[in-house]
């Protein structure tokens, strides 16, 4: 299992397979919004955490279709499926999700404070955004694995994955933004949405890989 994680992380960083593209897309989204919304710094500071979350969500959805397709193309997926009684397939999927998150999404989280500065978000808001993204984006990857597994056989399944997965990621977005805003705006609470966000991540950590494993098993042809 550790071997699988390390291999996928190595591949993610070596092959240039989209980690940098994801960060650039995140940057593009976050810088385009102020052009559209106008330079009112107060407004930007208020919607800043939300913009960061939306950008991270869209950028995470970008690379998801490659989660299993690369393995399918070179035949590794068959071998991963064949080893099912040695390594539970849901666990294999979980490890692949974690590796994908480490290489494709973690860079986004790290870059968040810098991008938040573009929108005049106060330091506590930056910290809250970063923390909620750290805890919440794995949920997007886990549930995205289901979409990736369902469309693994499709040549251009990328857009379809986003369409399928987006409704399911809306609760994650809602609570992530609520928690970020709660850290900044006084009356709003921070802890309850944050705990619900953590619960969502744990919940999807089970459901996502299990459903993805179920669908990969039926898709091997």
């Amino acid at each position, binding site marked *: 299992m*550790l*071997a*699988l994680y390390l*291999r996928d992380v*190595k*591949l993610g960083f*070596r*092959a240039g397979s989209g980690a940098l593209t994801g960060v650039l897309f995140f940057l593009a989204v976050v810088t385009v919004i102020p052009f559209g919304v106008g330079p009112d710094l107060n407004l930007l500071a208020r919607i800043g955490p939300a913009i960061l979350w939306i950008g991270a969500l869209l950028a995470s959805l970008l690379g998801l279709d490659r989660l299993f397709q690369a393995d399918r*193309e*070179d*035949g*590794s997926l*068959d*071998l*991963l*499926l*064949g*080893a*099912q*009684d*040695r*390594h539970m397939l849901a666990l294999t999927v979980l490890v692949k999700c974690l590796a994908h998150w480490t290489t494709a999404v973690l860079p986004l989280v790290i870059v968040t404070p810098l991008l938040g500065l573009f929108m005049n978000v106060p330091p506590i808001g930056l910290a809250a955004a970063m923390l909620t993204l750290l805890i919440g984006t794995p949920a997007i990857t886990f549930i995205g694995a289901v979409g990736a597994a369902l469309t693994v056989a499709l040549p251009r399944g990328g857009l379809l994955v986003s369409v399928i997965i987006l409704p399911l990621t809306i609760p994650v977005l809602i609570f992530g933004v609520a928690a970020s805003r709660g850290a900044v705006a006084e009356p709003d609470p921070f802890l309850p949405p944050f705990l619900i966000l953590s619960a969502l991540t744990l919940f999807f950590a089970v459901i996502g890989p299990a459903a993805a494993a179920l669908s990969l098993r039926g898709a*091997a*042809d």
Partner: protein
Amino acid sequence: MRLAVENVDGERGGELVFSGVSFALDAGRALLVTGPNGAGKSTLLRIVAGLLPAAAGAVTFAGGAEAFPDAKAACHYLGHPNGMKAALTVEENLAFWRDFLGEQRLSPLEALEMVGLGEIGHLPFGYLSTGQRRRTAIARLLISYRPVWLLDEPTAGLDHASEARFSELMRAHLSDGGIIVAATHLPLGLEGAEELRMGAI
């Protein structure tokens, strides 16, 4: 040990490709599956490997003890693609499969030497020629042990010397008590192998 396929039907793309295929192999036996393209050879191998469900019939494997409870666990499947990552070195690729598949028999370096690639283990897999890539995939069969080898056009892209070397490896596996099912157009140099001809109209 015994691999038995009973009355199996195979479907591809929703259509029936073959039906009623049966065979049984004991330890040390080999089966060559021949036939024209589209006859369903690859589909049959994937069904035996457990990657595709059989539309009818059953695949059973007995005598594998705890390590190999059923056919899926007992098979090394060598399909058309090689199952290796271009961005990793040859040794990294094989080391990963050794860790993931378990049941280690040879180290990656020893396996590479048996297929004649001992000097290039440090090169990225993407730089290798077709024949060298195929030989790396064959090396994977040697690193982790599985009693059953399911081979789909194993010698595709190999030159004569490599083919001969691979025949030796197959014979060694059989005399070790293994079972081989190979789908192929070319003669593999296995005497005493049974033949299953598919797709005859």
